[in-house]
Structures are given as C-alpha cells and as structure tokens.
C-alpha cells in the first residue's frame, strides 16, 4: 500500500500530500508522523496540502489530530497551501480548524514554525 513520504529538514518534518487522500492513508499518515516526531525529536511539522482538491471532515479531523498530537509531543504544526475553494468549502462545512496554524506557502510555513519555536524558547 502506498504511503505519504515524510521528509526531515533540520528539526522540521515536511509532509506534502500529493494524492487523493483515502481514509486508510490518512490514518497511517497520522501514525507515521507521531512515530517520526518522537524518533527525530522534531520541533515542527509542516503539512503542505496545496495539491489537495478537497478536504472533507475526515481529512479535517486528521489535520486537527496531527496538530493536537504533535503539541503533546512538543512540536508545532503548520498547514500550508490550502486552496481558496477548499477553504470556502471547509468553512461552509463548519470546520474552521481553530487548533491548526496555517500559512500561505512552504516558505512562510517554515518562517512561522521558526517564530513559534523561538517564541516558546523565549518565554
């Protein structure tokens, strides 16, 4: 079965979702990510969903879960690249993902992760 690759860049993990997510894939991504966070002691997780054409409540819940679980594991999660049509639909669906940090693209996502980690170190 195919899996979504998780890349490590410095102390961040980068996941770029390029395929149509089916439920099993979402669940295995969740499992793999938490394992990798612990293994690599990553401080940040970035999930690029710019290629996703839809985010339904199942995938929305997965994003939420990843954010919550990484928080417990002392890592910040940033979701980047959500398409406008997807964002409009998610809001209409009633999912505003309040616990998930977002950024426009990968560059800004990395900058946001840095800032969040530094803020934590500073406080």
């Amino acid at each position, binding site marked *: 079965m195919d899996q979504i690759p998780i890349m490590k860049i410095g102390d961040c993990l980068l996941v770029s979702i390029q395929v*149509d997510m*089916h*439920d*099993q894939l979402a669940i295995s991504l969740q499992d793999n990510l938490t394992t990798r966070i612990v293994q690599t002691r990553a401080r940040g997780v970035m999930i690029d969903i710019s290629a996703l*054409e*839809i*985010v*339904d*409540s*199942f995938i*929305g*819940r997965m994003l939420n879960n990843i954010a919550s679980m990484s928080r417990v594991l002392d890592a910040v999660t940033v979701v980047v690249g959500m*398409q*406008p*049509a*997807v964002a*409009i*639909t*998610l809001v*209409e*669906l*009633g*999912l505003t993902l309040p616990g998930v940090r977002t950024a426009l693209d990968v560059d800004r996502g990395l900058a946001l992760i840095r800032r969040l980690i530094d803020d934590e170190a500073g406080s």
Partner: protein
Amino acid sequence: MDVEKQATLAVKSAEDIVRIRREVRSWAVESKFSLVDQTKIVTAASEIARNTLDYGGGGQLALEKVRQGERRGLRLTFSDQGPGIPDIQRALTDGYTSGSGLGLGLSGSKRLCNEFYLESKPGVGTTVTLIRWK
C-alpha cells in the same frame, strides 16, 4: 425535473469514496460548475458516502445530471439498507454524532447543497438526496 444522464456507483469500501469523489468531480466539471461549486458538491458527496459506509453498512449512489426549466444541476441519491436514523432532527444538528466523527457530516453537507432531503426508517434504511444547481 428531467434526468439527462445517470449512473450508479457502489458505496462498499473506502476506495469507493475516492472513486465517488472523482466521478462527481468529473460530472461537475462537465456541467460547467465553478471551481467552488465543484469543490462543495464533491465534499458533500464525500461526507455522505462515508456516512453511508460507516453507519449504513454500505449502499449505493445514484448520480444524475438533472434539468429543471433553465436550471441544470447534479442530483446525488445515496441509499443504504442500514439501521436507519431514529431522530432525524437531532442527526441534522451541528455537532451531533453517533460515531466518532465531528458530527458535521449531515448538517455540514446540507449547507454545501442547494437542496437536501433525508429519509430514514429505523430497521429499513436511509436515503439522502443532494442537489446542487449550477
């Protein structure tokens, strides 16, 4: 309402949900839906298909290209022979769930369509009809 094209798809597995999303997308593109409208109907289809699978024990989707006067749209009818929904009113409330979801499936999908009908008989099954006009 006239039906211009129709197809039946199975809702038996998680892979079927992906297939349904693709099929609904291509029909919506063919019907010249805007990108936002395509995304809305595909997302609603994904939600209801998962409900049909998880709570109805699987069923089928009747996908139709319909026309009423000058209006054209897509009608999606999901049906299952599952346990049914005892309290429809409650099932349509935001946040209510009988499973592990966020409880947005039914009420959220309703907001993504122009017309939404839910029929259910305990012990007999559930039929959900969605219409999105162009």
